[in-house]
């Protein structure tokens, strides 16, 4: 079992950071590398996936298997290219073309492709990725380099070279390449080199039992996090670090048959953890980081009433954010840190409200110009409840779970209450969490009364719903930030 460390030990982590040794460099123009000639790129509009309304017109991209050189490089090249294709293929902006339909087979990263081979009828690739994988027999370093071609523009749009100390890191390099391509072709940062923490549930086991687990965003590398606890709820990733908050039901140290709900901070890399809320005298839960990671908003249930509080992690100063006899819960900061969205049943049904993080009064969109402490942004429209709000890291949308009509569905709404859209049609869809670029929402789905909960994701456009594979049942997904290159 992981030892709980004191705050000082957390501080010392800063000195002990481990570097992965990942180096990245922009690759030179093709014409300079192998002596191949290439026309100087003219001023050409960047290739971009087209968005019409809320929908992408998927950009047709070809990713042939990368070339390989060095011991074991062939297998790595094959798997790495498979992961790139799977990443891009799982996202709404791309249509990954079938590699069996490619005509040009002798691609060379040092040469420009024969563009005409990629524009033939039926293939019509708009983007082409040509790369290679080298494993240095002496140093065992893995080098991955690639070029992204705008096929119809006949220009290189981007090129990059990555070097890591061991081939074991090939999967992360694949995600890095996918993230580059996503950024180049959509203008939004990618999200493929990121991880998802969730609560793993064993079918048939006591539903109270649940362990912290982590996986890559594509479901690879799933493993338990050794928190030492067997009844974990509501893990929440820091928006900036590989650190999470979670709640755990634990044995009361004073009375062995009693239970406390504590809130913990947990460093995913080291397994070190710290108690944030002891769980005695009051019940703190539903904690989330502020965008800068320095504060935490949470719900506190005390004497039959639940309100929202904030704690400054450095000073441990607590501020009561709401003071109402209704249940206020599930707070989530806007990415600029200036507002908080939360759920309240003060108006007879459960609805979403926003407030200023400094608690100053605000003029509500439907308030007729008068100032209020909070503004309601969802409205019944047929007896619906709106719950589990989470502000997008882009700031443009708030995801929620809507309850009514015998089901829970995931939807999004803007902070002024406009643009409400329902994205899913599950039996019970809840606990939404945003991809770090705010384009994809992962959520917990209980597909039917008879089936256990699983994790799904859907694009903000409402398309591309897919299951994120987990080894067992899973609840409470929380999507972490894109991993850093240290």
């Amino acid at each position, binding site marked *: 079992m992981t030892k709980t460390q004191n705050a000082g030990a957390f501080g010392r982590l*800063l000195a002990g950071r481990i570097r992965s040794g990942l180096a990245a460099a922009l690759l030179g123009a093709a014409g300079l590398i192998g002596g191949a000639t290439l026309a100087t790129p003219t001023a050409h509009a960047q290739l971009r996936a087209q968005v019409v309304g809320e929908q992408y017109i998927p950009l047709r991209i070809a990713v042939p298997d990368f070339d390989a050189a060095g011991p074991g490089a062939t297998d790595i090249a094959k798997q790495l290219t498979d992961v790139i294709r799977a990443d891009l293929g799982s996202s709404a902006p791309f249509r990954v073309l079938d590699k069996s339909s490619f005509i040009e087979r002798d691609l060379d990263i040092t040469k420009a492709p024969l563009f005409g081979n990629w524009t033939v009828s039926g293939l019509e690739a708009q983007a082409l990725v040509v790369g290679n994988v080298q494993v240095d027999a002496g140093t065992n370093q893995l080098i991955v380099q690639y070029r992204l071609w705008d096929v119809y523009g006949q220009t290189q749009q981007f090129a990059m070279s990555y070097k890591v100390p061991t081939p074991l890191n090939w999967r992360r390099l694949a995600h890095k390449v996918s993230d580059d391509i996503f950024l180049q072709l959509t203008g939004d940062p990618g999200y493929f080199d990121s991880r998802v923490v969730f609560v793993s549930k064993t079918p048939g086991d006591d539903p109270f039992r649940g362990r912290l687990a982590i996986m890559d965003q594509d479901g690879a590398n799933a493993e338990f996090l050794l928190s030492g606890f*067997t009844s974990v709820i509501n893990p929440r990733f820091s928006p900036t670090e590989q650190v999470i908050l979670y709640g755990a039901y634990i044995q009361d140290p004073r009375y062995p*048959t009693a239970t406390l709900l504590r809130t913990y901070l947990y460093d995913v890399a080291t397994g070190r953890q710290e108690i944030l809320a002891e769980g005695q005298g009051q019940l703190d839960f539903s904690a989330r980081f502020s965008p800068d990671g320095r504060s935490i908003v949470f719900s506190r249930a005390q004497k039959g009433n639940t309100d929202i509080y904030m704690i400054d992690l*450095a000073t441990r100063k607590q501020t009561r954010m709401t003071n109402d006899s209704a249940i206020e819960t599930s707070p989530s900061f806007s990415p600029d840190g200036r507002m908080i969205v939360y759920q309240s049943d003060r108006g007879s049904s459960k609805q979403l409200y926003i407030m200023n993080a400094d608690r100053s009064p605000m003029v509500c969109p439907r308030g007729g110009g008068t100032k209020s402490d909070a503004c309601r942004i969802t409205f019944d429209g047929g007896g619906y409840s709106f719950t589990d709000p989470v502000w997008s890291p882009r700031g443009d949308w708030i995801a929620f779970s809507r309850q009514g009509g015998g089901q*829970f569905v995931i939807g999004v709404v803007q902070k002024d209450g406009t643009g409400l859209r329902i994205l899913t049609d599950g039996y019970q869809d809840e606990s939404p969490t945003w991809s770090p670029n705010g384009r994809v929402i992962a959520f917990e789905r209980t597909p039917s009364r008879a089936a256990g909960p699983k994790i799904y994701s859907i694009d903000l456009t409402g398309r591309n719903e897919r299951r994120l594979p987990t080894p067992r049942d899973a609840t409470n997904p929380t999507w972490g930030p894109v991993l850093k290159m240290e």
Partner: protein
Amino acid sequence: MRKLSLSALAFTMLAASACASNPPPEPPKPTEVAVVTPPKVTPPVEPTRPTPPVPTGPAAGSKGDFAAKATDRVFFDYDKYNLDADDQKSLASQVAWLKQFPSTKVEVQGHADERGTRDYNIALGERRAQSVKSYLMSQGIADSRIQIISFGKDKPLDLGHDESAWARNRNSYTNIIVEAIS
């Protein structure tokens, strides 16, 4: 495959925190212990053997005694936390027992059915537990003898997914955490 070891923990606010933490608690044990009724003593096969004393039931002031003499669970309507006449009758039996054994302590556990989000149901479960605590206190049980916890929808009594299961899962259970020494 291994991941890159990226423990880039620029986590300065933790460095600044001065609050020392406790050692890790043991994983929670089941809090609802089944009432164990001692097995009936079968007639001695050999009459020459001494006859063991016949148990008369759970020890006075024990968890088992509470379960035998008081109604340990009350049920709620959907999204409600008020106590009706039946609930108050059940709680009166708890009050009587708690008054008989003033050294005992209880944990009131609030539960909700699965219809609702995890967060809301924790809040609702806390309200239900607080309703019971308030009632017990109104009948003269000291605040210091009652702690509350909410399990929300995460610890259902009934694993079914229909009206009857939901009705059973909207409850508050009174768990004896300090027994009387008899």
